[in-house]
């Protein structure tokens, strides 16, 4: 009796949650289904019309994926995205850990003020930086090259990554450093042999966060790279695909999924770290 009453009382709650879940899942689901249908059926009927015969074969194919990966060159773009985001993330996490350690545990004049500046720069609009840097990039031949975009992404990511790593490192107990100092360890040794190993979970969160940010970036690539096949990352190629083939849904849906594949894998396998990164960045207020 009690249980039935409870169930009825909770029905609106379940319905509300179900509606939310549906709104958040259906758009992506529609995209996924569409990407496996052939162009004629996509243009002829909505993707939801397949539900009565959801499991019957023959209506699905990988043709659209083959099309975008080979003919549209998204295979190469996928590779470019990897070439861009992995080194850029690694360099920025590395430099940020050094800086975070310096700011958290090394004494020097002006360190507080400087760190405040770094915190402030976390939110600076990147639009402020493009115009003065482009002519320098052109002169140095960095425009449209991988090293150029590595540097830019590294620098743009540094304020946030430094802040996140700092939040973690500042929480390490002081005793650890005292005992290291008694043992006669230099700061570099302390950093490398003591601080880095215990920071690995925090660094993993920062790495994932930064990796997804760079992987998903469009603006920085638009400015510092070109649409050339040899350097264009996924987002740039797909944005161009939207401009040039805006009604070819078989291409766009497959392309969108190619761009989501890696983030989704990262998301499902490392969600814990991802969530931790978000919480470290904002909850401490």
């Amino acid at each position, binding site marked *: 009796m009690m249980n039935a009453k409870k169930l009825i009382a909770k029905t609106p709650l379940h319905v509300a949650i179900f509606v939310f879940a549906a709104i*958040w899942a259906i758009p992506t689901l529609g995209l996924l289904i569409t990407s496996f249908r052939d162009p004629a059926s996509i243009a002829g009927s909505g993707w939801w019309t397949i539900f009565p015969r959801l499991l019957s074969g023959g209506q699905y194919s990988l043709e659209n994926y083959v099309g975008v990966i080979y003919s549209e060159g998204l295979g190469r773009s996928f590779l470019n995205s990897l070439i861009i985001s992995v080194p850029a993330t690694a360099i920025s996490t590395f430099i940020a850990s050094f800086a975070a350690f310096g700011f958290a545990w090394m004494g020097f004049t002006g360190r507080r003020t400087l760190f405040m500046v770094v915190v402030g720069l976390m939110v600076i609009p990147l639009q*402020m930086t493009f115009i*003065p840097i482009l002519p320098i990039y052109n002169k140095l031949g960095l425009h449209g090259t991988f090293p150029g975009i590595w540097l830019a992404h590294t620098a743009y990511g540094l304020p946030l990554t430094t802040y996140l790593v700092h939040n973690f490192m500042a929480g390490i107990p002081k005793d650890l450093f005292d005992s290291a100092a008694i043992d006669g360890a230099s700061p570099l040794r302390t950093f490398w042999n003591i601080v880095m190993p215990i920071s690995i979970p925090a660094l993993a969160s920062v790495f994932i966060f930064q990796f997804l940010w760079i992987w998903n970036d469009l603006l920085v690539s638009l400015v510092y790279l070109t649409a050339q096949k040899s350097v264009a990352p996924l987002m740039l190629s797909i944005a161009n695909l939207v401009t040039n083939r805006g009604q070819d849904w078989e291409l766009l849906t497959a392309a969108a999924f190619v761009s989501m594949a890696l983030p989704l894998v990262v998301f499902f396998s490392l969600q814990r770290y991802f969530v931790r990164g978000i919480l470290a960045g904002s909850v401490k207020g």
Partner: protein
Amino acid sequence: MEAETKRRKLFARLFHSLRRTAVGRLVARVCRLVWHWLRSIRWRSWAFVAPALVLIGFFLVYPTVVTVARSFFGRGVQLFGPKVHFVGLDNWQFVFTNEIMLTALRNNALWAVLFTTGTVGFGLILAVLLDRVRYEKVVKSIVFIPAAISFVGASIVWKFIYAYRPANLEQIGALNAVVVALGGEPVGWLLQRPWLNNILLIVVGIWMWTGFCMVIFSAAYKNIPKQLLEAARIDGANEWRVFRRIILPLLAPTASVVATTMVVQVLKVFDIVYVMTNGNFSTEVIANRMYKEAFLYGNYGRASAIAVVLLILIVPFMILNIRRFAAQERGR
């Protein structure tokens, strides 16, 4: 040899007589101070932060200063190139009088209000509701997925939902299919200026960022001692009252942090607009306009002024962040 010694002696005498003058003494003193200062600097400490500071200085601080200056100059790439002239407040006049710029400013305000309310509101509601059901984790993942994908991907997802075809063809966009099924006429959603199409773009943003807010609210909500809520319920407070009087005040500090993050995000909104409408049909926003002025029309003066507008809008939040951080440091 003789001449060499002589010259040396002359220099030594000159140096000593200069050294004895007031200016000489001052210079010597300054030199000594600088020397002591240089010796007192902890080079090893600086070595840790130097790489980061150099990169941040070159890519963020230096360009910011130049861009502010650049907003008072005309076209052209080089700051002081042959074709670039000082134009005073011309760019600024453009920013605040040009019709498209005014549209962009208005749209950014619309984004700021609706996007922030939407993400923070839905995030909060979901965090509180999901805590009460057993399948919390599954739904959380579903809502959170869009946070991992790109704006470009999400834009395609929703462009497909909004897809429009004339009434005599079968609709392939989900939204128009619903409208037609209910007996209506199909609508070209992204052409419905000036409000509906903007709102539909904002929906994409809300869809992407609600999960982010939900995760943060959920963590904060789970920190609230549950006895507190139980005590209120035993005292006869209904669920709404518990939410209004206990949960909401306790989550207010979190809400303020989350809302700040969202506003900063939304002021810079670019990708969604660039991919879905490219700012056509009255959907222009500041960041997209800046991109067009700079990299399509090559008008770097105007583009700089537009970028500075963005900076000015964000500076209050920058200060807020710094003050929050300072308070947090004091509490350590």
